[in-house]
């Protein structure tokens, strides 16, 4: 028994702290089974931003709805397209003749309600403005039977005849009627639909919109080696992979914060297309060669011919063309600033951040031995690419054209640049994209 204990102890001492070298490939096998680092931060951030944005929109909408009248800042000059009007007003010192004015108002069917709010800074506030195509008909209407003899033009205090007016007496409906009657009489301005469009877009400060966007993209791939010993591999990849025309599609919901500033957020799917040309070194092509041999006599004349057939195998000739697709589901958050505006056209400088929610890959690329290939698809995680592409910057110039008060079309040349590599830390190359695109959009304004 004592010997047994001694035996046990000797074995224990020999093996308890023994180490055996681990096979090299084992870590790769373990790594494949490990869950990828969670993207909780990105998802949380994206979630918080989306919820915040929705709440802000909701709050603003509700606070608007709670007010008795909708207060909209309105630029007087924009409402009246002709500059002659302003100069005509400067000279208006006398009560204005009426009958013709009444008829004019009836003709143009523009109902304007300017109630109870004036501001001394030169901007006139109105409760609502509508035209014959306007969205809301206001309650205060002027008709041809209303007497318009109370207008006192000399009470108009014109601060800037081209831009703004302070009109202390405008709260009196009769005066308003007189004023607009006068405008039309003096300038023969007809409110056509296109002017009403202008009124809508230049007038409102708070606007909600939903934009459907589609973009044609040309990606530029940045592929770089982690070390000098990988340069050959990178060159092999560069020579076998070519980017193609790609696309993105999505929507952006937004809010015009001020006349010149708007914020948007939404969802976007984009796809980068590539072609991978791979020549399999182990493949071989079989060819049948027909050999015709001529039999000649001593004089050199051909007297006969023999046809033989040979089969030969040419190695490394099979080339595969594999379509690689890199797919991104993103959350774009974009801020737009108006840099130009004229009539129906407006130009915005857009900039923002695109947070990736999901990154998927399908296709194949060369392995780091530059001979074999690694295939990957969307359904299985792989050792090469991350599951989340992180953040990208977004810059664009948005050119808009108003088709109607509620509808705009836009064209937006844009540039997207990924901040970080799409590859895993252990992969010997860094891969990311800069995308140049032209985005077409359709904006619905609410």
């Amino acid at each position: 028994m004592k010997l047994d204990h001694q035996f046990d102890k000797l074995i224990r001492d020999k093996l308890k702290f023994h180490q055996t070298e681990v096979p090299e490939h084992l870590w790769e096998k373990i790594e494949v089974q490990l869950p990828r680092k969670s993207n909780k931060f990105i998802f949380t951030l994206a979630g918080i931003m989306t919820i915040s944005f929705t709440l802000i929109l909701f709050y603003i909408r509700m606070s608007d709805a709670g007010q008795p009248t909708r207060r909209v800042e309105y630029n007087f000059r924009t409402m009246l397209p002709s500059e002659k009007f302003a100069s005509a007003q400067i000279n208006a010192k006398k009560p204005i003749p009426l009958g013709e004015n009444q008829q004019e108002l009836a003709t143009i069917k523009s109902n304007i309600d300017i109630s109870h709010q004036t501001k001394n800074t030169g901007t006139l506030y109105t409760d609502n403005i509508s035209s014959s195509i306007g969205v809301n008909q206001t309650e205060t209407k002027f008709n041809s039977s209303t007497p318009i003899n109370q207008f006192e033009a000399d009470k108009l205090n014109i601060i800037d005849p081209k831009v703004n007016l302070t009109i202390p007496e405008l709260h009196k409906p009769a005066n308003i009627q007189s004023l607009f009657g006068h405008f039309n009489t003096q300038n023969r301005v007809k409110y056509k639909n296109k002017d009403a469009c202008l009124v809508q877009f230049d007038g409102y400060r708070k606007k909600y919109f939903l934009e459907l966007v589609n973009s044609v993209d040309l990606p530029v791939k940045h592929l770089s080696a982690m070390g000098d010993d990988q340069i050959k591999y990178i060159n092999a990849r560069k020579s076998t992979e070519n980017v193609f025309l790609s696309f993105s599609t999505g929507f952006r919901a937004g809010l015009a914060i001020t006349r010149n500033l708007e914020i948007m957020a939404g969802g976007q799917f984009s796809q980068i297309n590539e072609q991978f040309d791979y020549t399999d070194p182990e493949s071989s092509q079989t060819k049948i060669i027909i050999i015709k041999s001529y039999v000649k006599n001593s004089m050199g004349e051909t007297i006969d011919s023999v046809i033989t057939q040979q089969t030969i195998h040419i190695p490394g000739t099979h080339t595969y063309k594999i379509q690689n697709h890199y797919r991104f589901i993103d959350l774009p958050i974009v801020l737009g600033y108006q840099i130009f505006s004229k009539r129906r056209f407006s130009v915005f400088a857009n900039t923002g951040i695109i947070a990736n929610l999901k990154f998927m890959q399908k296709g194949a690329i060369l392995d780091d031995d530059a001979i074999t290939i690694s295939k990957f698809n969307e359904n299985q995680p792989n050792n090469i690419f991350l599951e989340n592409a992180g953040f990208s910057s977004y810059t664009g110039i948005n050119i808009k054209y108003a088709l109607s008060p509620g509808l705009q079309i836009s064209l937006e040349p844009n540039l997207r640049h990924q901040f970080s590599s799409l590859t895993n830390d252990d992969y010997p190359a860094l891969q990311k994209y800069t995308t140049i695109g032209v985005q077409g959009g359709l904006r619905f304004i609410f």
Partner: protein
Amino acid sequence: MSPLVLHSDTERDLISGCISGDRKAQKGLFQMYGATMYAICLRYAQNKSEAEDILQEGFVRVFQYIKHFNFEGSFEGWLKKIMINTSLKYNQKHKFCIEYDTFAVNSMEEYEDPEIIHTLHAEELMSYIRQLPDGYRMVFNLYIIEGFSHKEIANMLQIEEVTSRSQLLKARKLLQEKIIAHQKLAI
């Protein structure tokens, strides 16, 4: 109360990294303890291929449950426990029936000189252990090297305590025979 165990900064950093899912930290931890854990797996497995499977499965579990490690005990001890449990589960899962016979075996009388073990390399000794039948090997490892009692082994393997004892005697006998044969060959 758990004994106070000091963890080196490297070990602590690696563990923290693994908890947050950092792939580099996971690889670092594997490189730090892989060889020790592989040796344990080799003792419980029948061959190297099985040992690799166990090590693989064990480390996946380590990274899965590392967030529950509270730095109170030895981390290496915690790792070993997971590897041993994984080895036992692997054997239960992949071998339909491990035979545990209960015949009593007397202690070896002809085994005169335990010092003979010094003439063996650890790798040779490991290969002899791997050649033991599954049931013998489990009990032998758990009792002699890991230091569990027969009662604990009986619970772990869900066998009778007496079975554990007899398995140990047989394992010891068989191993001694192999060592003696080795000694004779060496002479």
